[in-house]
């Protein structure tokens, strides 16, 4: 009975197995979608982080830190926006990046604040702080876990098996610490810097829905068609008014 229940609850056993795609993107016809993300209006005043729950963290900063919900550069350029291909991709096999993605804890903040990586790509989570941290991802489609990371401890080497959207990564000792990790089944994603730019390279010709995700302002979609070796630029504009 227990075995039967276990079999019924198994995702793998209830879904027909799809053959793994074998085709790869042809680099001679691949194009790119680049662009910018900006914020219209005056950015909200950053909220100061109160570090009373972590007095050792407070000692690391001479002035209070602020929540990095909305980070802008020159001319309204919006940083920490995850831009990715939401739909339109054919069935391709993508090689995993050979270098691991990296998430660090610096000054009791996760760096970077927003991170994209591929499913089964290695992720190194480091602690360069002189303080114990506690890494706790809260995924939607992957297994949740929680692990202490002592001072000077080795990096936590992990990976996510399945695509997942905006996984909050918390620290159970320092409640203000939060990063967002996005896991994709393809390599077409980028996170904007303070220049507000993104670059989705090596895209096969086609029509795509491109989505931009911002922590405070949500998501925006645009449909873009690119031909062989074509590069197109798109602009996302979020409004500070909501």
């Amino acid at each position, binding site marked *: 009975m227990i075995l039967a229940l276990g079999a019924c609850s198994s995702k793998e056993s209830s879904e027909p197995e799809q053959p793994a795609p074998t085709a790869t993107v042809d680099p001679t016809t691949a194009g790119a979608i680049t662009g910018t993300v900006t914020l219209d209006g005056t950015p909200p005043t950053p909220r100061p982080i109160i570090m009373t*729950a*972590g*007095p*050792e*963290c407070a000692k690391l900063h001479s002035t209070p830190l602020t929540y990095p919900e909305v980070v802008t550069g020159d001319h309204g350029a919006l940083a920490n926006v995850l831009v990715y291909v939401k739909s339109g991709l054919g069935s391709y096999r993508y090689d995993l990046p050979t270098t691991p993605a990296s998430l660090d804890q610096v000054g009791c903040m996760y760096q970077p604040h927003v991170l994209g990586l591929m499913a089964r790509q290695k992720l190194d989570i480091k602690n360069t702080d*002189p*303080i*114990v*941290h*506690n890494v*706790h991802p*809260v995924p939607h489609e992957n297994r*949740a*876990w*929680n*692990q*202490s990371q*002592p*001072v000077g401890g080795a990096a936590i080497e992990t990976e996510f098996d399945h695509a997942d959207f905006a996984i*909050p990564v*918390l620290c*159970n*000792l320092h*409640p203000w610490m939060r990063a967002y990790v996005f896991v994709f089944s393809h390599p077409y994603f980028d996170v904007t810097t303070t220049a507000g730019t993104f670059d989705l390279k090596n895209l096969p010709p086609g029509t795509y829905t491109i989505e931009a995700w911002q922590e405070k302002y949500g998501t925006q979609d645009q449909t873009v068609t690119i031909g062989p070796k074509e590069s197109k630029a798109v602009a996302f504009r979020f409004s500070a008014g909501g």
Partner: protein
Amino acid sequence: MYQLLYAFAHWLENTGWALNISGSTWAYPYVQLIHFTGLSLWVGTNVAVDLHLLGIGSKRLTSAELNNALFAWNWTGLAIAVTGGFMLFATAATSFIINPAFRLKLGLLVPLGIILHIVVQQKTKTWGQAKDTPGFAKFMGGLELLWWFAVATAAASIPYFEHVG
């Protein structure tokens, strides 16, 4: 021994319910509320009896009568505090077990404090018969007050020892 403790802590903080508490915006504060409600009951009733043994407070009841009246609330408070405390511990167990202030609190001060409390509670049945308690009863009441103050100090010091470990 430490390896065993670490393995238990790691297992505990990765149980489904512990991950749900620490991953939820609301669950953690409510668990804190449970812990501090229990502590208020436990320490509050301890302090009331200890102060009475010291001769402070209403004289309408003897220390023995007060001790008896608060007995159920007292142990209910500890049960609630331990339940909430265990749930809080479970959210970051491997981090807590390397924290010197936490080790001092839970490894030494709390167990000895409970033993001290049981002794005081039992002896108050005889010490507290008269309106004026004996000198040794006053000493023990004062000692227990200081002891729980030390426990609270160790608890409050936990975040200050995060650089160790």
